[in-house]
């Protein structure tokens, strides 16, 4: 008995919400960045569940694109975080508030 796509979809929704929670609860750039990755993954899972339930392969294609873009995004994001750390010696968002009006 294979679980229906709906089960995967519910899982994706839960995962997405957990990612959002992590993003808001955490206070350092790296973990927040990881939370964004969780959300992207939840999106991927939803795409695949839809692809399965609609019987189309397009969902998988989009997942591949999302993964590629996420890889590019992670590289740039980490480079920026490394730069911030080099200049400020911290990655805590509470201490990065120079632009506060």
């Amino acid at each position: 008995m294979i679980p229906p796509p709906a089960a995967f979809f519910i899982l994706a929704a839960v995962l997405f919400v957990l990612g959002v929670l992590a993003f808001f609860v955490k206070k350092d750039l790296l973990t927040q960045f990881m939370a964004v990755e969780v959300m992207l993954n939840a999106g991927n899972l939803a795409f695949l569940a839809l692809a399965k339930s609609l019987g189309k392969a397009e969902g998988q294609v989009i997942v591949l694109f999302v993964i590629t873009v996420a890889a590019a995004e992670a590289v740039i994001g980490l480079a920026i975080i490394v730069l911030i750390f080099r200049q400020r010696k911290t990655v805590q968002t509470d201490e990065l508030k120079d632009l506060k009006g």
Partner: protein
Amino acid sequence: MAWAVFLILSFLCIGSVAAMILSRNQAHNALFLVLSFSSLGGLFGLLDAPFAAAVQVLVYAGAIMVLFLFAIMMFNLRGELPVRVKKTRLAFTVGLGTILLAELLLAGRKLVLGSPGAASAAGGDTARLGHFLFSDYLYAFEITSLLILAALVGALALAGKREGS
């Protein structure tokens, strides 16, 4: 059988993200995420998408998270991070999360309630996926390659700078 695998994998996936929220050590966070992404790869496999599953493990768990761990090690961020989350903010976040979850399920209720009907062999075949990539989605594919090149150059330009130059 498949249900058991599904339940175990989804428990691992959700549980490790939850553990990530609770843990205060960044290296542990990253490792929890590796576990989560690997089990997601297994779930992709259950959805008849072996190629996506392999790419998920290869790229997400094997490359992106390695980069994260690498950064964490380079900063040498040891020890626990301070918790400074206000109660009101936490309550607000949880409330917002619940609303978001309800919204998502509402939006996808057709899928949730609808019959799991037309689930035929939906492109479990990697060759078919390749045809799609190189015919209908060729432009998107080429643009992704440009994007990766841009990211490569950008990362070099950003992180390659020496101190004081």
